[in-house]
């Protein structure tokens, strides 16, 4: 393995060793959502004419888990190793900022997809969605996980304490994922909130991802792809630059 592959492998091994907590727990959470929302709302919420609510909910929950866990992976690894001091082992290595970026974001994508796949396998039992355009599913899952992995990298570099990280997670990531149309189609919202939802990049990730299953979505998947792709480029550029200058890690 080369240097960055080792860091990538280490980051994957890190979450895999505590897989009960990093993969098992989010899958259980998604099952809870499925049981409660699916049961309560199945007969009340009509999304698209051809799609039942539980089937609609499955891709939303999968994508939400992908995004949240991709973010959690890079951010918690960085904040933990900063506070424990063990980040010094990577800081002393000859790895470049690009190596860091690909290793941390790559392992976040792996964690996001692993959890997403797990959530899919257990929730598909409740409502079977179709697979009209599997390539879109894959593209949005990978791009979304990479975007959140890069965002987690920035948050992990910025935060100095666990409570700062919790602020980022609870006041930015959670609201944005919940208000992105995981549990509903934004067409069911009043016009004002529809407009607000269109400003949320998470909406496009979930909408595009869902298009891959049902072939219908709130906006065109190409628009979603353009927005998610641009957001990924911007966030990645910031993350790589922070790594290059050693923001809060090299003084």
């Amino acid at each position, binding site marked *: 393995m080369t240097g960055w592959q080792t860091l990538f*492998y280490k980051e994957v091994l890190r979450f895999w060793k505590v897989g009960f907590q990093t993969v098992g727990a989010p899958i259980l959470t998604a099952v809870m959502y499925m049981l409660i929302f699916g049961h309560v709302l199945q007969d009340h919420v009509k999304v698209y004419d051809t799609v039942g609510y539980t089937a609609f909910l499955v891709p939303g929950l999968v994508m939400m888990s992908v995004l949240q866990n991709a973010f959690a992976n890079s951010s918690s690894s960085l904040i933990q190793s900063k506070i*424990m001091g*063990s980040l010094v*082992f990577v800081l*002393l*290595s000859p790895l*470049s900022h690009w190596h860091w970026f690909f290793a941390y974001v790559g392992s976040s994508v792996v964690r996001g997809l692993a959890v997403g796949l797990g959530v899919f396998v257990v929730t598909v039992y409740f409502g079977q969605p179709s697979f009209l355009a599997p390539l879109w599913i894959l593209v949005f899952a990978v791009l979304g996980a990479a975007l959140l992995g890069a965002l987690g990298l920035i948050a992990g570099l910025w935060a100095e304490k666990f409570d700062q990280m919790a602020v980022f997670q609870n006041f930015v990531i959670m609201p944005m994922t919940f208000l992105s149309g995981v549990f509903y189609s934004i067409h069911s919202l009043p016009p004002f909130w529809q407009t607000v939802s269109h400003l949320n990049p998470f909406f496009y990730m979930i909408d595009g991802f869902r298009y891959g299953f049902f072939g219908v979505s709130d906006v065109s998947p190409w628009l979603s792809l353009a927005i998610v792709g641009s957001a990924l480029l911007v966030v990645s550029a910031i993350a790589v630059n922070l790594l290059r200058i050693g923001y809060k890690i090299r*003084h």
Partner: protein
Amino acid sequence: MPAISFQSVSKIYPSTRSQTGPGVRALDNVSFDIQQGEFFGLLGPNGAGKTSLISILAGLSRASSGRVLVHGSDVVTDYASARRKLGIVPQELVFDPFFTVREALRIQSGYFGVKNNDGWIDELLLSLGLADKADANMRQLSGGMKRRVLVAQALVHKPQVIVLDEPTAGVDVELRQTLWQFVAKLNKQGSTVLLTTHYLEEAEALCNRIAMLKQGRMVALATTSELLKAASSNVLRFKIDSELPKAIADKARITGRIVQLPAHNANEIEHYLSAIREAGLVAEDVEIRKADLEDVFLEVMAEKIGVTA
């Protein structure tokens, strides 16, 4: 080519919100070279700038001005090459709680792109007395064992320059001996060693050349034997139960009942002893010994002598 070259290195930490002014000057224009194969000691009291200097060398921190070269590679512009040549044992007792000792060492090898390194990893484990802990999780190890792993991690890529930042702080006698035997062996085989320590007898025994820092400035740089010659040649040492007369108390190093006074000649010794007699005191266990590195260190820090060669 020197193993390490510090060239006019300064470091100013920006002032915090509660302070005003230009900030804290941790290093002030420090320049010196360490030659290949040296066992070099960097000494100074807490806050003198030793760790700042090593952090800049390691790339953990950036100099405000000046530059540092490792075997000719600049630690900022050519950091990958510089870091491959450096093995740094950090001062803090840090570890990654997710891994076993062997995993930690394999991962550290991997960061440096060293493949199939199990032979050298086994040798490191054996030499540092870690062989039976190879598969133990880092969390289960005692402080001393964690320190050994830190040393092994620093050496896993066979660096040409080994930097030990206070490696024996809070470490038992057995580990100190294991560590020094091993590091001395690597030094004999050609590795350059840079050591910071508060144990001056260790520095005196191990280092061929020594630099001393005080408040970010270099106040001494010479071979160990030159330094020892530069200080007061002798020390008068005795035990006493009462307080010393003021005139000699100012010059004395006092540790509990033990009093040590720098003495250049017999007259000075007579002067001290008569001052004690006139005060009606009795000195016990009186002896005269050769000055050691601790005496030199104290005189340099008091700026009674400056040594540069």
